[in-house]
């Protein structure tokens, strides 16, 4: 038994049709990990020591236990204590929280890389804590780690097949159903592999480009956008900080 082109072409649309579901779940989980990751970062730096300690071990625990088992826990076990989620939400939250622990490490590395002098200057300028965080520290801490953050979008994307274990109809689940119905697994599973390559390879190249760009300075950003900054132009400044 070898590769059957006819069969492959026939089933391709069925498998590929899961693409919007996969993209939706990936971005949903990514959003959760970006925001929850930032919250974890703050909690870990809390001056209230028990909270910082608890957060540290929460991160270690979630990071070193399998997302598949966490998924079962969220989907099957949480209803026992009154938290019932549908399979999509369970999938998004599980993956999102799992990778939030990685993302929080990324934020931390970015924050640690901001020179101490920036904190001191903010103090000398008499900024509030919130102003210091959101206008001075984070705008410097996050741009250099954007490629690393982008990388986790890809990692998340590649992790979505585990959701088949709770019956989410992503690529692999579709392929598995087709395979079982036809007793032919080679074509459907190969197609899933190709879809992953097709979607993740260009994104990886994009992230690589981002990485090279993020090594350039702030003024390079401004030039690339061809902005002319006049006065304390809030908009223009926001753009350059976000770029």
């Amino acid at each position, binding site marked *: 038994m070898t590769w059957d082109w006819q069969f492959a072409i026939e089933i391709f649309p069925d498998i590929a049709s899961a693409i919007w579901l996969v993209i939706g779940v990936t971005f949903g989980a990514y959003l959760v990990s970006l925001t929850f990751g930032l919250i974890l970062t703050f909690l870990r730096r809390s001056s209230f020591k028990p909270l910082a300690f608890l957060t540290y071990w929460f991160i270690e625990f979630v990071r070193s236990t399998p997302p598949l*088992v966490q998924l079962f826990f969220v989907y099957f*076990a949480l209803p026992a204590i009154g938290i019932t989620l549908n399979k999509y939400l369970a999938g998004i939250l599980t993956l999102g929280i799992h990778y939030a622990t990685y993302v929080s490490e990324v934020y931390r590395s970015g924050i640690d890389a901001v020179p101490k002098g920036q904190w001191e200057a903010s103090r000398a300028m008499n900024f509030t804590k919130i102003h210091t965080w959101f206008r001075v520290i984070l705008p410097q801490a996050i741009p250099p780690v954007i490629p690393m953050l982008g990388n986790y979008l890809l990692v998340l994307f590649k992790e979505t097949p585990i959701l088949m274990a709770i019956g989410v109809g992503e690529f692999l689940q579709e392929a598995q159903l087709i395979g079982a119905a036809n007793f032919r697994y080679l074509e459907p599973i190969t197609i899933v592999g190709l879809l992953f390559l097709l979607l993740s390879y260009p994104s990886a190249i994009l992230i690589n480009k981002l990485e090279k760009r993020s090594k350039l300075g702030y003024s390079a950003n401004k030039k690339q956008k061809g902005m002319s900054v006049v006065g304390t132009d809030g908009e223009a400044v926001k753009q350059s900080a976000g770029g």
Partner: protein
Amino acid sequence: MDTYKEIIPLILPGLTITLKVLVASVALAISVAFVAGLARLSRFALVRKITAVYVELFRGTSLLVQLFWIFFALPAFGIQFSPFLASVVALGLNYGAYGSEVVRSAILAIPNGQTEASIALNMTRWQRMRLVILPQALRIMLPGFGNNAIELLKGTSLVSLITLTDLTYKGLIIQNNNLSYTFPVFVVLLLFYFIIALPLIFGVRKLEKNASRGVAKA
């Protein structure tokens, strides 16, 4: 508490399988990582290219898809692995690909002066690698390997989806047989995985501290 006492002995046989899969795949992954990592730095463009394709193939797709492909699709070519062997091959090749990047970047992190000095001492290529570069690069690699081992441990839970009776599979069976166990079963499972991971976590932390010792600075 009694429920937990009942569950643990039921789950223990799964632990043996999980540990067996873990040890065998880590061994395979490390071997693959070194071979592929060195091959990516080979003098021969063809060797570099072929290795790069392997690495990108395995890093660009999902571990679960690879596992399914090896278990369900390979038989189409007359290669039928047992669930255990399929698991070890998939985990070993997947994390071998990630590990090869650890090997490669660690070797590249050794300052050029070290190579130049060994050339000045008239060492052969292999001597340079074996006596000067690798011993230093190894320290840099170790934390990376440790982190990959934790990732691999997490990956072993996927083998339950191809019917290998590991921890996760055992847990699912117990849960299926007695739905009132649902909550404690998954708590026990998570704790088991965490306990296996703990020595790795502490090991990595220690290795990270030692990583920079005895390595030439640029």
